């Protein structure tokens, strides 16, 4: 985790930041749709992968999931983060040279804004709630129907 945060001007506003989404942060929405919880965008130091660093290394966005194959992946533009009071910078770590952050306090409204602005990378479009529920059940992290409970 970085201790000296700074906004890196070498990261353009249009650069995508990739954020892994844990399945527990995908919930039931309206009409059989899934919804990503704002909790996925809550951390003051929101860890992301920087698209520019990944591209320079010849890595595809999906490679962000290399060590976490059960997670999903979303992207958000650096400019969106900045316009919501966030500092965007690099924080390479041994296990992830493309690691970076969107640093700043995130009110509930900002969490929601970041969540709504994020686009799906893996899967390519918003999954259905049923898909998510079954996957959670397979992984043993919830997904039971009320009638299946102990």
């Amino acid at each position: 985790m970085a201790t000296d945060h700074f906004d890196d001007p070498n990261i353009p506003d249009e650069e995508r930041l990739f954020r892994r989404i844990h399945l527990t942060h995908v919930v039931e929405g309206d009409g059989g749709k899934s919804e990503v919880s704002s909790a996925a965008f809550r951390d003051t130091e929101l860890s992301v992968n920087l698209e520019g660093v990944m591209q320079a290394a010849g890595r595809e966005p999906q490679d962000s999931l290399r060590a976490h194959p059960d997670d999903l992946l979303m992207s958000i533009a650096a400019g969106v983060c900045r316009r919501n009071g966030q500092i965007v910078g690099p924080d390479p770590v041994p296990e992830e040279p493309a690691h970076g952050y969107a640093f700043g306090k995130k009110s509930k409204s900002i969490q929601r804004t970041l969540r709504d602005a994020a686009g799906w990378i893996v899967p390519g479009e918003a999954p259905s709630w049923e898909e998510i529920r079954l996957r959670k059940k397979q992984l043993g992290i919830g997904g039971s129907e009320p009638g299946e409970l102990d």
Partner: protein
Amino acid sequence: MATYVPVLPALTTGLFRPKYATSGSNASAFHDRDVRVSVTPRPDCCRLASLTCEPEVPAWLMPTIQSLRDLLQLPRDWDGYGAVQIQEQVAQKALLVLVDVMENDAPAPNVVPLSDGGIQVEWHRRGRSLEIEFPADEAPGFYYYEDGSELESEGQVSRSYDRIQAYIANLK
């Protein structure tokens, strides 16, 4: 189906005191933590052939308890970003608040983990969303908004039970 060790004795319906009227909240349910479900014969609920009174356990309660138990099974660093394990006392606090503010016929919330060991419960129904956040080391807060509208509202849970009850009623 997964079998769970009951790590949280408080997270059971045994601590729920039934409500016979549907207009009030469950605020009395946890006033005495040793209380177990008590069956109080009432003429209007004892006309069944069995002559027994089953306490009315809200439909949302068991799924919510199960979801809380699921989150308590998450390991340290469950998100791969350094998250801490979900704290039992936060789960208890969340359930206590829900019992206070939710009607028996309220829809079950989604329950999600927070990276600081806290919990968030949330509903997304009919274009309306309500989130109640229980951070590990801060007072619980709520956030309500409606799609396609600039309406949004947030505040501390402890000062806003009436508003939260109204928002949940809007979600039915």
